[in-house]
């Protein structure tokens, strides 16, 4: 690719960053997510994993917060703080992986349906609408019930049920890009499908997809916790599975707020961060929202 193109793109990126930086909520979200991701990667080095095993746990059952256990203990005597910190790993991993799957499928369906049109578009949109109206949680739970339980099935179940919004968005954007004259010019000069999609459609659709992606991550993390609460999760420690065990072990009737609050607050903070970043990116990248709000 020629140098001026890159220069223009770099200038555009600098511009986007300057506008994004002005949004304080989005900036806070970015910082929080970055710190949490860094911590999750380093967690095996920082946390003594013996504290996570039921057999080697040292505390009593459902002890309130104390000097030794800052956030109390769970029903088998493990530190709730340790579990919450460790739970970030699976919750984030599932959130990111499910989002990746969902966004790739959604983008593919959206671009293909808008680019080729005709019966392909009709069939794909029929399927998209079908998945769009179905209660996604129920479908994901059913998928989990019939498949072997593991973290990867959770990722698949969430990814497979959450792509239609992305597909719709990408389709609309692709249609609007493809109606512009330079696409016609490109086709007239002999550009094939791959060329038009790869060189023209994707570059102009991807920024919007990226903004949408951050919103999807938040939704996927909530979905993971909800599925875990319904008993559909692998054996790994995640915020959702902690809340499920808290509920099953009677932490609510015992008034063990220290067991319920930390994982839930962690979910809210992370999802809120992703939502703030997503909305921030959307206002900067979506030309239609510019000047609104």
């Amino acid at each position, binding site marked *: 690719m020629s140098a001026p193109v890159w220069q223009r793109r770099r200038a555009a990126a600098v511009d986007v960053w300057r506008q994004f930086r002005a949004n304080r909520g989005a900036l806070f979200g970015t910082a929080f997510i970055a710190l949490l991701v860094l911590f999750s990667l380093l967690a095996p080095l920082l946390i003594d994993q013996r504290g996570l095993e039921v057999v080697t746990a040292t505390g009593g059952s459902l002890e309130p917060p104390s000097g030794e256990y800052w956030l109390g203990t769970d029903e088998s005597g493990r530190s709730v703080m340790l579990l919450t910190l460790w739970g970030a790993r699976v919750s984030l991993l599932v959130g990111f992986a499910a989002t990746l799957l969902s966004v790739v499928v959604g983008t593919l369906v959206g671009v293909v349906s808008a680019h080729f049109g005709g019966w392909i578009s009709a069939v794909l949109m029929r399927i998209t609408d079908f998945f769009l109206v179905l209660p996604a949680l*129920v479908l994901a739970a059913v998928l989990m019930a019939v498949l072997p339980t593991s973290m990867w099935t959770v990722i698949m179940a969430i990814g497979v049920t959450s792509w239609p919004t992305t597909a719709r968005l990408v389709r609309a954007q692709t249609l609007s890009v493809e109606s512009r004259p330079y696409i016609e010019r490109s086709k007239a000069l002999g550009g094939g499908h791959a060329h038009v999609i790869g060189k023209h459609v994707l570059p102009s659709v991807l920024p919007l997809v990226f903004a949408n992606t951050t919103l999807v991550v938040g939704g996927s993390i909530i979905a993971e916790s909800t599925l875990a609460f319904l008993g559909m999760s692998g054996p790994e420690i995640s915020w959702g599975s902690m809340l499920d065990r808290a509920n099953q072990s009677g932490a609510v009737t015992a008034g063990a707020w220290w067991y319920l609050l930390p994982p839930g607050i962690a979910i809210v903070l992370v999802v809120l961060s992703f939502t703030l970043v997503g909305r921030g990116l959307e206002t900067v990248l979506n030309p239609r929202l510019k000047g609104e709000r």
Partner: protein
Amino acid sequence: MTTSPTEQHATDPDERRDGTSATRYVAGKVGGALVSLVFVVALGFFLFRMIPGDPLVTMTRERPTDPEQLAHLRERLGLDRPVWQQFLDYVAGLLQGDFGTSYMYRRPVGDMIAERVWPTVLLVGTATVLAVLLGLWLGVRAAWRRGGTFDRTQTGIALALWSMPQFWLGLLLLIATQGVFPSRGMTSVDPPDGFAAQALDVAWHLTLPCLTLLLVIYAQYMLVMRSSLLEEMGADYLRTARAKGLRDDLVRRRHAVPNALLPTMTLIFLQFGMVVSGTVTVEAVFSWPGLGLLTYESLRGPDLPVLQGVFVILAGSVIVMNLLADLLYRVVDPRVRAS
């Protein structure tokens, strides 16, 4: 699961315009819904055939069963016949309201679903009505003073609520009101005499589940009402109304709000899928004896025939609701009809 609280209208703008005649529009929508229903029925069958292993093994787990009993069960459940025949039997059964037999309770799934429908209708109905009223009121107030303190606070609260897993909100309410409201079920263990006392008892049990569901769903109505009113606010007819001397209050109530209501009305039906997902978790938290709790119990079992039945019923009702939304939109919005 991931519909963000952004201001999106689910009906495609191009879809709205190209309806040539009323009959074609209605036929198209009904046809689409029928195709979706067929999808749901097929999905309901084939998803449950993906299960690795023998369903009989799952079913008789933890129960000693001799081979003769197994063979008998297999025959009674039709598991010894080819898959296509099982599918035809299943469809024929559905058409007659026969959803199969529960693995766990050995009862017809149809009966189990039927007795759980009304509690869910009560819960979802009450929560939806309250959420719509609250959402519309807040949305109108936020939009009318756009960018003001009220607007910003409300949008912030809506975002925070959206970032919360619904079941966690329910658990929080339970732990915060510890003992003030009943934590499970729809009626007391021995219900009081008299209709009024019984209704009060149910309302007492309904408070927390209804509040949780309400908090989860009102934000969508608020955001849509807000953006839809914002769209109307620049319109000329409002300037005319003001120019002829109407008070601000009357301009809002008589002119702006009725027009802005249109997209919100259809949203009530379009949001039904989200409400259904919310019902599952809320009913699971509060042991509200509806379809959501039945879903939860059959997931925990796992009681696959029950799960299959509940899935078909829930997904089917969502599709019907969406069809109603599409049809209603045409009835209430003359602009769509005229084009």
